[in-house]
């Protein structure tokens, strides 16, 4: 069983929901990333999403665009990101790490090379935002051969037919984009998310994570009520941006935010039980 699958299985037996924070690798500077990853785990993260910086992050709002730009000032490459994961694995061998980004850096490294190296350093999943299942065959094959879960997006606009395709191509979990828009926008509607998740669950047994627009403890708890995992990106990245020159302050603020989400989610699940 993959690290991601066993993480979700274990959470299920505990009756808890997964918290998946996102940070962009290399933001605000390359040395900060591994340390931040450990802080996120200590604050209550179950899985980590590590953004691979890209020059043209078309699906992202201003916060993550700016994070990519901060990382790219330091020329953080996919190769560098893999090294960061290797460094993280020296201490932490249990928290699943998912790389999230755009296809081109993976395409340029080569699918096979990427999949082999990612497996070697302890990456567990890959989410390429601009790669729908239709174009994913070759990459998914390489990922599967190297035990890396290909994670696909589902959206409010995904038809039943598309959800089938997405569920079939992916493994690990399915990432549901909570609204039509870019990351960090303020458009979360918990009821419509709940409705769509019902449809998704009839199509696939994969755990479903929900991201986009979850910004605080309250929204995290609301989503945790209906989803298997809560993904938080822009809200964390904004804290990093606000304190870009003060690593200690970043750790304190990010830990505070993630910790509050963790607590609210666990309170919700205890209450539900």
């Amino acid at each position, binding site marked *: 069983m993959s690290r991601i699958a066993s993480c979700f299985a274990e959470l299920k037996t505990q009756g808890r929901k997964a918290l998946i924070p996102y940070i962009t690798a290399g933001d605000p500077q390359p040395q900060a990333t591994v340390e931040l990853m450990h802080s996120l785990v200590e604050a209550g993260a179950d899985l980590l999403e590590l953004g691979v910086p890209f020059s*043209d992050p078309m*699906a992202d709002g201003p916060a993550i665009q700016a994070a990519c*730009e901060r990382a790219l000032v330091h020329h953080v490459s996919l190769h560098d990101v893999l090294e960061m994961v290797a460094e993280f694995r020296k201490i932490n061998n249990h928290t699943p790490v998912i790389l999230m980004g755009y296809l*081109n850096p993976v395409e340029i490294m080569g699918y096979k090379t990427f999949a082999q190296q990612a497996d070697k350093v302890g990456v567990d999943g890959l989410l390429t935002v601009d790669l729908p299942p239709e174009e994913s065959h070759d990459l998914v094959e390489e990922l599967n051969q190297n035990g890396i879960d290909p994670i696909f997006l589902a*959206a409010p606009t995904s038809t039943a037919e598309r959800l089938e395709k997405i569920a079939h191509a992916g493994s690990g979990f399915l990432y549901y984009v909570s609204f039509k828009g870019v990351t960090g926008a303020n458009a979360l509607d918990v009821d419509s998310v709940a409705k769509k998740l019902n449809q998704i669950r009839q199509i696939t047994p994969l755990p479903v994570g929900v991201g986009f627009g979850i910004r605080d403890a309250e929204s995290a708890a609301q989503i945790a009520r209906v989803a298997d995992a809560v993904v938080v990106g822009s809200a964390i990245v904004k804290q990093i941006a606000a304190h870009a020159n003060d690593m200690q302050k970043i750790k304190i603020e990010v830990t505070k935010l993630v910790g509050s989400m963790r607590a609210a989610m666990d309170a919700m699940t205890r209450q539900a039980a």
Partner: protein
Amino acid sequence: MTVAKKKTQPSFNELPDENGHFGRYGGRFVAETLMQALDELEEAYENSKQDANFQAEFDRDLADYVGRPSPLYFAERWSRELGGAQIYLKREDLNHTGAHKVNNTIGQALLAKRMGKTRIIAETGAGQHGVASATVAARLGLECVVYMGAEDIERQAPNVYRMKLLGAKVVPVTSGSATLKDALNEAMRDWVTNIDNTFYIIGTVAGPHPYPEMVRNFQTVIGREAREQIQRHTGRLPDALIACVGGGSNAIGLFYPFLNDDSVAMYGVEAAGEGLNTGHHAAPLCAGSPGVLHGNRTYLMEDKDGQIIPTHSISAGLDYPGVGPEHAWLKDIGRAKYVAISDDEAMTAFHSLTRIEGIIPALESSHALSYAMKLAPQMKQDETIVVNLSGRGDKDINTVAKLEGIQL
């Protein structure tokens, strides 16, 4: 003369395939939220092709609103001056709004109306596509938002004002390099947010399927007319076609109806900027490598890590790090040849045509003209070249004046 000719395929007119691929290029690389919208667009577009009323309305608009057919003008004095092949200019600069861009925006706006969309968005570099989009939006009473790089807004002030006069909202894009590619990113972000009521009019033959095919088909009116006109002028097909290539819509519009004419050589002219060896250029086909950006796989200007690198060209319309996937395919199979012309060379051609023929060309088109200045003298006097004069240069006079230290 030697031309790139390969008879490896029975026809060059059969792509893209059903998934939008031109060989290994093209496709549909977008976030999931947009996939359903692209399916709907594809379906609406396919239906419109079968609809005689739609086609008749499109043709009528091209005739009465755009002013088509555009003339094919024999540049007799310029040809004599260059001393080689006879040069004919396809006068897309005479279209309403001053460039070939309007052929496509008319088609897509009719499609938007057919699909019941009330809001149009567009990206623009030189501003020609933005003006053409704002124009058709005004005519059809649709809301129009145009994304434009802050740097381009600076260098294309007249077009910015035209868009505003036409009722469009021009949104400056400051992220990334603040040019066309970033405007495209921002338009995509708008589209994903407002997908229910918004139609995204992409201005070139790039982006996710079906855009490269759809935009090409709307632009092939250029080549169909030119093919007929040159035969009326000379009694035969031309020996060479030349067009500038940013995204490549005017080039594919001219080339496509000639692709199966083996005797016709085709030259796509990219922007060499300050020179291909300086790195400051916008020539992905001549000096880039394949990758994935803006919804399609194609040649890109990128670094070894797959990051898109800043481009440079004197002409905003060519200042783009990608290129339409069909051009990538035509390059690989050798059916078309891609070359590059520097800023300085384009400026020389700009002045040359202006002074000798009394036609002020767009800086984009000046790249094609510059290559004609190189090619014509190498050809015989009984040979002919058709150059796509894709746009007029009025919008560029500020840029040109500034370069020459003249205050307007």
